[in-house]
C-alpha cells in the first residue's frame, strides 16, 4: 500500500528533533490557550501565525515549512484538549467546543466528587476520537486530492460555492446574517489589485490599501481581541470553583473501563464527527453538540444526562476532536478550510509560499505526510501531557485578570504587526476586534466572514477563468456532471433555511387552527 510508505516517510519527517521540539512547545501553548477563557484556539493559532513565518524560513536550525505547520496544528490539538479542563474543574468553558462539558463534566466533578474521572474520561475519548479521525484522514486524503487534481475552473468554483452554501444553509445563526458576513468577506478580499487585470479597486485613494486587507490581522482582531472584549463583559475570570485538579492512575483505569462500555458510542461519534468536520464551517464546536445529542438519544440512561453521565462527556469529546482533525482534510486536499481555525492554518500556507490544495500532495509530499504523522504524535503527546500536568494547567486559571488580559492584547499586537512590519495592520486588528465583538453581540456569525476572506481571491479567479473559458457563458458551469451536481447541492443547501421556515410556519398555522380558542 502506497499510503503506508508515505506515512512512514511522514513519521521520519515529524520525528526529527526540531519538529518534535516545536510540536511539544506548540501542544503546551495550545493547552495553555485552551485553558484561558479569554483566548480561543482560533485566535491562539492566528496570533502565533506570524511567528511561524520565521520558523518556516529557517530562523531555527533545521526548521522549514513542515516545522511551521506542525507547530501551528499542534497549538490546535493542545487547545482541543485544554478547553475541557476549565469546563470540568471551574465550570467555565475554556473553548467554545468545551461548553457542552458543562452539562455533565462539571456535575460529575462537583456533585459526584469525581473530577479526576471526569477529566480522564474526557481525555481518553478525545484521544480515541482524534485517532479514528486521523486514520480516516490518512486513507481519505490522497484519493480526494488525486480526484481534485482533475478539477477545472468550473469544478473548483462549484466547490467554493458549495462550501459557502454549507455555511449559509447549515449555520446556527440567521441565514441572511451568514450571507451578509460571507459577502463582506468576499468584498474585503477584493480590496487592492485585481489579480487578473491588475486594476486598482476599493482602495479609495489610500496607497496602503493597494496591497489588500491581510487576512491575519483581521482574524487576530475578530477572534483574539473580540473574544477578550466579550470575556471582559462577562467579567470572565470572576467566580472560580475550586475543585481538586488531581488525576490519579485509578481515574485513568476507571475511565478506560467506562470507555470500553461505551466503545460503540465513541467510535460511531468519532466517525460522524469526521464527516461533519469535513463540511466547511463546521468545526469542533458544532460537532460537540451533535455528539452530545447523539449520546443522549441512544443512551439507556437518558435521565442521568445533566447529572454527571460519562456518556455525556465521552460522546461530545470524541465527535469534537474528530471534527477538529477532519477540518484539515478539505483544507489540505481541496484548499477549502473546514473551520475558522483551519482557515487560519491555510492562511499560514499562503504566507509560507505554499499553495493549499491537491498540488501539495505532488509538489510537497514531505510537508503533507509530515503533517499527517504529526497529528498522531501531537495527540499522543497532548494526551500524555494532560494526564500528567492537569494541576499545573489548572493553576493558569489563577493568573490575575489584570495581567493575563493586557498580555493577550500585547501578543495580538505583536502577531498583527510582525507579519508585514505594518502599523496599519495593528490598527486593522484593533478595529476588527471591536467590530468582531459587536458582530458577536448582534449574533452575526464570524466563520463565513473569515472563510470568505481566505477564499475570496481564489473564488473570483476560478469564476473568471471559467467565464473566459466558456466565452462568457454561465452555462459553462454546468458542462460537467460533477460541477452540475455540486451546484445543485449548493442550491439545495441554501434553500434549507427557507424550507425550515416554511415548515415552522405551517406547523404554527396547524397548531393555531387546532388549538382551542381561549375563553373571552
Amino acid at each position: 500500500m502506497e499510503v503506508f510508505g508515505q506515512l512512514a516517510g511522514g513519521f521520519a519527517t515529524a520525528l526529527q528533533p526540531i519538529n518534535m521540539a516545536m510540536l511539544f512547545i506548540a501542544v503546551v501553548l495550545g493547552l495553555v490557550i485552551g485553558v484561558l477563557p479569554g483566548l480561543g484556539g482560533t485566535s491562539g493559532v492566528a496570533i502565533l501565525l506570524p511567528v511561524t513565518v520565521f520558523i518556516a524560513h529557517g530562523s531555527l536550525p533545521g526548521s522549514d515549512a513542515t516545522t511551521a505547520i506542525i507547530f501551528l496544528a499542534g497549538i490546535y490539538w493542545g487547545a482541543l484538549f485544554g478547553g475541557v479542563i476549565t469546563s470540568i474543574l471551574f465550570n467555565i468553558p475554556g473553548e467554545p467546543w468545551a461548553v457542552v462539558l458543562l452539562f455533565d463534566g462539571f456535575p460529575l466533578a462537583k456533585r459526584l466528587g469525581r473530577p479526576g474521572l471526569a477529566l480522564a474520561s474526557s481525555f481518553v475519548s478525545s484521544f480515541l476520537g482524534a485517532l479514528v479521525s486521523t486514520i480516516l484522514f490518512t486513507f481519505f486524503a490522497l484519493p480526494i486530492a488525486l480526484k481534485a487534481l482533475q478539477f477545472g475552473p468550473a469544478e473548483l468554483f462549484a466547490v467554493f460555492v458549495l462550501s459557502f452554501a454549507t455555511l449559509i444553509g447549515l449555520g446556527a445563526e440567521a441565514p441572511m446574517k451568514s450571507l451578509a458576513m460571507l459577502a463582506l468577506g468576499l468584498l474585503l478580499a477584493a480590496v487592492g489589485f485585481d489579480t487578473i487585470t491588475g486594476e486598482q479597486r476599493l482602495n479609495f485613494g489610500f496607497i496602503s490599501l493597494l496591497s489588500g486587507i491581510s487576512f491575519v490581522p483581521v482574524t487576530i482582531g475578530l477572534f483574539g481581541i473580540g473574544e477578550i472584549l466579550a470575556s471582559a463583559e462577562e467579567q470572565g475570570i470572576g467566580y472560580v470553583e475550586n475543585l481538586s485538579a488531581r488525576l490519579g492512575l485509578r481515574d485513568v483505569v476507571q475511565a478506560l473501563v467506562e470507555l470500553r462500555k461505551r466503545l460503540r458510542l465513541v467510535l460511531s461519534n468519532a466517525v460522524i464527527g469526521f464527516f461533519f468536520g469535513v463540511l466547511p464551517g463546521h468545526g469542533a464546536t458544532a460537532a460537540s453538540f451533535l455528539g452530545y445529542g447523539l449520546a443522549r438519544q441512544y443512551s439507556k440512561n437518558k435521565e442521568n444526562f445533566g447529572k454527571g453521565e460519562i456518556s455525556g462527556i465521552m460522546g461530545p469529546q470524541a465527535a469534537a476532536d474528530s471534527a477538529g482533525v477532519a477540518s484539515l482534510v478539505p483544507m489540505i486536499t481541496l484548499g477549502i478550510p473546514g473551520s475558522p481555525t483551519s482557515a487560519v492554518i491555510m492562511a499560514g500556507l499562503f504566507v509560507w509560499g505554499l499553495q493549499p490544495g491537491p498540488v501539495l500532495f505532488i509538489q510537497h509530499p514531505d510537508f503533507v505526510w509530515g503533517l499527517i504523522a504529526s497529528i498522531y504524535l501531537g495527540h499522543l503527546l497532548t494526551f500524555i501531557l494532560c494526564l500528567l500536568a492537569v494541576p499545573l494547567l489548572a493553576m493558569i486559571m489563577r493568573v490575575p485578570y489584570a495581567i493575563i488580559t493586557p498580555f493577550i492584547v500585547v501578543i495580538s499586537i505583536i502577531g498583527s504587526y510582525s507579519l508585514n512590519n505594518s502599523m496599519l495592520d495593528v490598527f486593522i486588528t484593533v478595529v476588527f476586534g471591536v467590530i468582531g465583538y459587536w458582530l458577536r453581540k448582534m449574533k452575526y456569525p464570524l466563520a463565513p466572514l473569515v472563510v470568505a476572506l481566505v477564499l475570496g481571491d481564489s473564488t473570483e479567479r476560478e469564476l473568471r477563468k471559467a467565464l473566459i473559458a466558456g466565452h462568457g457563458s454561465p452555462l459553462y458551469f454546468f458542462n460537467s456532471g460533477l460541477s452540475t451536481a455540486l451546484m445543485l447541492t449548493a442550491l439545495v443547501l441554501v434553500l434549507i433555511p427557507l424550507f425550515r421556515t416554511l415548515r415552522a410556519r405551517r406547523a404554527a398555522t396547524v397548531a393555531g387552527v387546532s388549538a382551542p380558542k381561549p375563553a373571552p
Partner: protein
Amino acid sequence: MRPYQVGTAAAIILIAAVAMFDSRAAFNPSAGTAPGDVGARWYPFWAAAIMGVAAVVVVYRSLVTPQAAEGVFSGRDSVFAVLKLAIPMLLYATLIGGVGWRTEEFTYTVIPPLGFYIGTAVYMGGFAWWIGRYKIWSVAAILVLFPLVIYAAFELGFRVNLPKSFLYDLGVLPF
C-alpha cells in the same frame, strides 16, 4: 435590541452602497479585459449588492419579528468592563506609532512614537495599577519584566523587528 440590530444592518448597507458606488464601472469592463471576462469591478459590485440585500432583509426581519425586550448590555457594569479594556487598548495601539501627520514640507508630531517596548511597559504597568490595584513595586516589576521577556523571545529569539521609540531614533535607548 431592535434599534441595535437595525443600526448594525444599516451600517452594513452603507458599506455595501459605498462599495457598489466604487465598483459602478462593473457593467463597463475596461479595455484589455479578456473576451468572456467580466472585468475587475463586477465581482466586488455583486458581492456588495448581495451584502446590501441580505442586510435589508435583516432590517425587515428585525422590524417585523418580536425582539428581546432587554438592551444589548446586561447592565452599566458590563459596559464599563468593556470600555475599561477597549479604551486603553486603543490608546496603546496609538501610542506605539505616535500621533502626527506629514505634509510635503514638514512632519508634525503631536505625540512622538513610544515604540512597542515603552508602549507595552506603560500599558501593562498602567493596567496592573488601575485595574489590578497592585502595589507600586509589583507594577514596577510588571512594566520591566514583560517587555524584557518579549524582547528576548521575539527580538532575539525569532528576530522580529518590533517598532522602536523616538528615543531609539535619537540614539538614547536601544528600543
